[in-house]
């Protein structure tokens, strides 16, 4: 009797999972805007204009690798991932962890001898490397504050703004 109950509950949970999962599938329309703020501390979160970037670059896999596209961008990836197609979630944080350098995560990456992708950047690195490299290549804005405004904590951190030493020029650019 008890076992049957457990089986039913498990069945319901599994059914819910399979029903809800395609809700995030590839057939959905891409979001117009994405708020990127899980790491915001020194800078405010970014209101990422997804629609604009979709207009500029139609190939989703340029940013989402093979995970959210039926086509795999690079031949190197296709060797293993040619048939994986779309996936449930296009979120960067599925693979790029927020804290890549904790002792636990370093051990986790080292202990599995069959793991191929051992050099995965963290979430912050993934965002910046992906966004900024493209911005540099295409001539889009590249200064830090062009994408996200600095917080008060950020100004204190950089000894800038109202925390600037006297005579210092804050809010500089690389030009």
């Amino acid at each position, binding site marked *: 009797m008890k076992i049957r109950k457990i089986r039913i509950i498990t069945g319901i949970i599994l059914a819910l999972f399979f029903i809800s999962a395609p809700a995030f599938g590839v057939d959905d329309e891409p979001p117009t805007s994405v708020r990127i703020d899980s790491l915001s501390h020194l800078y405010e979160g970014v209101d990422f204009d997804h629609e604009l970037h979709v207009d500029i670059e139609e190939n989703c896999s340029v940013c989402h690798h093979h995970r959210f596209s039926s086509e795999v961008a690079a031949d190197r990836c296709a060797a293993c991932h040619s048939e994986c197609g779309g996936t449930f979630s296009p979120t960067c944080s599925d693979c790029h962890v927020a804290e890549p*350098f904790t002792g636990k995560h370093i051990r986790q990456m080292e202990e599995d001898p069959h793991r191929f992708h051992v050099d995965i950047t963290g979430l*912050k690195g993934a965002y910046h490397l992906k966004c900024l490299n493209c911005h540099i290549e295409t001539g889009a804005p590249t200064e*830090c504050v062009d994408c996200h405004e600095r917080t008060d904590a950020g100004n204190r*951190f*950089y000894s800038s703004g109202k925390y600037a030493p006297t005579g210092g*020029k804050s809010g500089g650019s690389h030009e």
Partner: protein
Amino acid sequence: MSGISRRKFLKSTVVAGGSAAAAMSSTKSFAMKEFEGYPESMGVLVDLTRCIGCRTCEAACNKEHGLPEPELPFDDFSVFDQVFHEGKQKRRTTEKAYTVVNRYDTKAQGAPVYRKLQCFHCSEPACLTSCFVNAYTKTKEGAVIYNADVCVGCRMCMVACPFSMPAYTYDSALHPQIIKCNFCYDNRLTKGKPPACVEACPQEALTFGHRKTLVKTAHERIRSNPKKYVDHVYGEKEVGGTSWMYLSSVPFDQAGFNTTLQHHPILDNTKSFLGIVPMVLGIWPALFMGFHLLAKGGKGDKESKDKVEVHGE
């Protein structure tokens, strides 16, 4: 009489020679012994192709260690134009900054290259071996740390360091000390956390991990992107290996690196000599005193005999 003397002399010479040879061989084995770094040593791989010169690492280091306020804000990029010693020297680590980022306008590529500088945390540090009061320690986690309590301020480490990293608080009259990056040893490394600069870097130009793994990661990045990188991991072999290593897209000398450094520890240059010192100090006095006594002993006996004979007359 003279026969016994000769036998004695030869005997003692053989003994002395033998012990000297034994000492020599032990010196040699000591000198040949190689230390390849602690197996669990941590390290940081600095990928210059990722660095954008935002100076966030400098700010993070400053705040982490409670260093003095900077003269200019950390978002003032005019510091990259600062040069010293008639334009030959870019910014260096100082008593107020464990780490600095410099810009190099290289000929090899259009965009400038930025390089973060800090203590390289050598596997066999020259600062440590040059210090006669043992103020330095190479920890098993890979950090080269410094103890100001025993330091006598001789600044030999500053001369010994092949990267000119240690700075000195010359303006402190009462408690001057060496200032250098300590790999965030106390606050972070021993607690399984990455250094503050690594954590702060937005571009993940700094990758923290076991040194052994990082060497593999570095070569893998070169292998999978041979056009992007120079085929060299700076710090893998330089001065016997360092915990902080670099990858670059331009030849390393163009990014301000000293590419003439030897591939074995600085200590090796003096190790064989230093190994002989105890032998020379311990055996030579005894050996030559033996020679002296034997030589003088025979003569002395004869002289005293003569004297006795003279007295006898």
